[in-house]
């Protein structure tokens, strides 16, 4: 299978400017800037069916086309490298193994949207990724591939690398923009969307690292080539981060739409020690959990949505039959309770409430009505908040109770008392 995003991974000094250039690096950028118009670039990306690989799966070309070209304000590109979704570790590898692929994508994207400044917001804990990427930026500046008149052409691009401070919510694009502006990472009310009012009040495109890394190959080899790598409406490949109870956990670049069963059993080597599969989180912890019966689903945005889960960030967490699903739910709920930004009442109070409720179930101190109340509590969060974090709490925690209710009930049995 052809590798697109991870083609340089594992090679000696794959992060170096020289090695990237040797392998036809920055050719796509030159091609876009010399032989294409911005709208041709956008059209090409639209045709490639590239979707936002941060988790939302929004068509990238369409997102770019929302930037008002005639606006007198500066436009910005913000690359979201605040990879915080539990179970996800792809952006980190891209930043560390192939940073110039990201920079080339940045150049092309900036050209397409008319931006001269890009910010890369890197998760605070990713110190090595930051150092490597910062080094790549400096190399590119030295080589004249960033800065004024890049590659000898009449186009300026500055890249600023910014380190986050450790909040999951700053991966939400408007929370990220607030944080980048120096404020507390509170997601913004929408509309207006960032394409109209984004960073510093200016039109802004926010794209994930992996999405940006796909841009240069699309320009090099064409939209049709990229689109046919994947499946319908989901172009290309993506990096699946497989962790948990598998023989070979790791990062796998596979076509969009690869069946989950194939990822677990063929690529990741199946469940170890003779155990059987119990559950899978298909796209980072926010994605509703799947049971062992549901793994024939194709791993693309539309197929997963159709069965009530989501492709999310590509973080696949595999759980075998030894897993206590109440414990798994509790860990997920604790994560949400810790990371809720605290802005909207339902999410702020509900995430903590749900966590403490599950904790009592896990500790076997809960009563039957506590379990009966739990789905209602988490249901009231989703859809009623500013950002999608609240929806994630509802969908994620709700799915454990819905699909593994008997395990929750087992922890309550014995506490049933007849005192009314």
């Amino acid at each position, binding site marked *: 299978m052809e590798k697109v995003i991870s083609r340089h991974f594992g090679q000696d000094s794959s992060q170096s400017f020289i090695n990237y250039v040797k392998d036809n690096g920055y050719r796509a950028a030159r091609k876009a800037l010399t032989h294409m118009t911005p709208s041709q670039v956008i059209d090409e990306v639209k045709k490639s069916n590239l979707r936002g690989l941060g988790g939302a799966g929004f068509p990238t070309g369409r997102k770019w086309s929302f930037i008002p070209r005639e606006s007198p304000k500066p436009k910005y590109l913000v690359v979201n490298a605040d990879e915080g979704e539990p179970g996800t570790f792809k952006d980190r590898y891209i930043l560390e193994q192939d940073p110039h692929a990201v920079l080339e994508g940045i150049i092309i994207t900036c050209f397409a949207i008319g931006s001269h400044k890009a910010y890369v917001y890197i998760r605070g804990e990713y110190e090595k990724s930051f150092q490597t990427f910062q080094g790549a930026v400096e190399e590119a500046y030295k080589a004249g591939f960033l800065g004024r008149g890049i590659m000898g052409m009449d186009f300026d691009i500055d890249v600023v690398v910014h380190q986050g401070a450790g909040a999951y919510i700053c991966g939400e694009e408007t929370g990220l923009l607030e944080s980048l502006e120096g404020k507390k990472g509170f997601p913004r*009310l929408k509309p207006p969307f960032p394409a109209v009012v984004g960073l510093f009040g200016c039109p802004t495109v926010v794209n994930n690292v992996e999405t940006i890394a796909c841009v240069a190959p699309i320009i090099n080899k064409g939209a049709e080539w990229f689109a046919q790598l994947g499946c319908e409406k989901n172009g290309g490949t993506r990096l699946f981060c497989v962790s948990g109870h598998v023989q070979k956990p790791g990062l796998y670049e596979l076509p969009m739409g690869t069946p989950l069963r194939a990822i677990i059993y063929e690529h990741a080597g199946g469940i170890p020690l003779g155990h059987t599969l119990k559950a899978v989180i298909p796209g980072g912890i926010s994605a509703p959990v799947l049971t062992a019966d549901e793994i024939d689903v194709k791993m693309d945005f539309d197929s997963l949505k159709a069965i009530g889960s989501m492709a999310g960030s590509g973080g696949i967490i595999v759980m075998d039959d030894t897993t206590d699903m109440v414990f798994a739910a509790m860990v997920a709920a604790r994560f949400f309770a810790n990371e809720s930004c605290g802005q909207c009442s339902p999410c702020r109070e509900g995430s903590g409430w749900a966590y403490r409720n599950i904790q009592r179930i896990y500790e076997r101190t809960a009563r039957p009505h506590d379990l009966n109340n739990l789905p209602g509590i988490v249901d009231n969060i989703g859809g009623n908040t500013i950002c999608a974090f609240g929806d994630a709490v509802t969908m994620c925690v709700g799915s454990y109770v819905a699909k593994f209710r008997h395990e929750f009930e087992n922890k309550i049995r014995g506490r049933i008392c007849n005192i009314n």
Partner: protein
Amino acid sequence: MPHLTIDGKQIEVPAGTTIIQAAKKLGISIPHYCYHSALPIAGNCRICLVEVDKQSKLQISCYTPVAEGMVVSTNSPKVLEARKSVLEFLLVNHPLDCPVCDQSGECKLQDYYMAHGLYNSRLADVKVKKEKKAFSIGPTVMLDQERCILCTRCVRFTDNITKTHEFGIFNRGDHSQLDVYPGKQLDNNYSGNVVDICPVGALTDKDFRFKCRVWYLEPTQSVCPSCSMGCNITVEWDKSRPHAYKEARVMRLKPRLNPDVNSYWICDKGRYNYHFIDENRILRVQFKDELISWERAMDILAQAISPLRDSHRLNRIGVLASAQLTNEDLFVIQKLFKQLLGGVSVDFRVPEKPGDSDHFLMKADKNPNTAGAAVILASDGNAQQIMEKAKQGEIDVLYVFAHDLVKLWGKDTVEQIAGKVKLLVFQGSNINETCSYAHLNLPRSVYAEKEGTFTNCQSRVQRIWSAFPPLGEARADWEILSMLSEKLGTPLNYKDSQAIFKDIAATIAPFSEMTYEKLSDQGMLLKK
């Protein structure tokens, strides 16, 4: 202009109006905590969610603009369920300490729970404990982090209205807490307003704490007398429990909305300047060391004035009027001393030091009616000259309204004058050093005890209402002068302040066409 339907009622509103504003115009009140019409939209409390046709998710009505043909429901089952659940979430970590909370009775958590909650508690978990309870964050306000629902109204007030930036929300999730920034105190000229806009009991007023339950309070509309801005206020007084707090009647002042004057705000100087209404009052009519009746006091005055009138020596009378008085009082002074008794020197402009001021509401002129006094008294005399003349022995009767002469001119001067004039009359509301030098002390009522109008620095004439009868024997200034006019044989015959105002409108051009009805509760500008 877009047309829309809210709960089956149709309305047309300007583009850009939000659903909550359009609903208000229809008389539909959508519950809200974080929304405040004078502050930027935060959209965080989520209780104002409504159902908009063709939208799968509920929308917050404070932020969603109206659109042509929009159909909104504020009471569909989905909306009611969401509203109830938001309340439930807000109360999850709320201490429910209503019995010891000052906000009780005017708390939006209580109100909305009764109207939209009424669920059985599903909470079996330990509440999150927050650090600061009954914690002083400045000279006037106490913070209770547990009661706070994190609506950020106070944060937005100090960020956008006072621009003093004292407040922030610290930590995240259900450990979020409101606090002042490290090393900062909530200490600006408008601190007290955060208590008004706080929808719950998180921010309470040190001046009001534990004095009175709010349901014992009776509100009376008024105008702040503490400076020339004339901010609109409500005097809140204890109607039925005189034993509750030092026998005081007034428990607090609250700002009252007037978009043309003070919006929703008042300064702290004005807010806390009400204790004089119930404390240290002049309660009895007193001549030298003797308590006397009003009747006798008027005899004494008439006996001093009549001979001067008969001998055409009215220039030996000096009147120090005051911009603390209402337009009505000043008009009666003008009518009595300048028309009926021509030749009397009258002035209200005393050498006062300018007070504190800022660029928002606080004015250096601490009198509520300087603009009115200037128009009505069209003064020829001069307070300084009157005092000089009194010192020289050229004044027989010196009639002083409200001013503390000792504070203005010093003890020695006042002592000297008291020895020179035949009758030094002090008509005041509160005991001060001048009282002891005055021969005749007459108790006047304060603004909360009478009807009338003040003219503020914008030349806006605004009404004050009487909350309760005057303390002791005090009477309104115009009433006292009416009594005097009868004794002098030239009765003024005013039965109430409204009758005086009619006369003002009829005779003083800038007031023409004004009536109490037209002034309503928002006032009218003087004609140029």
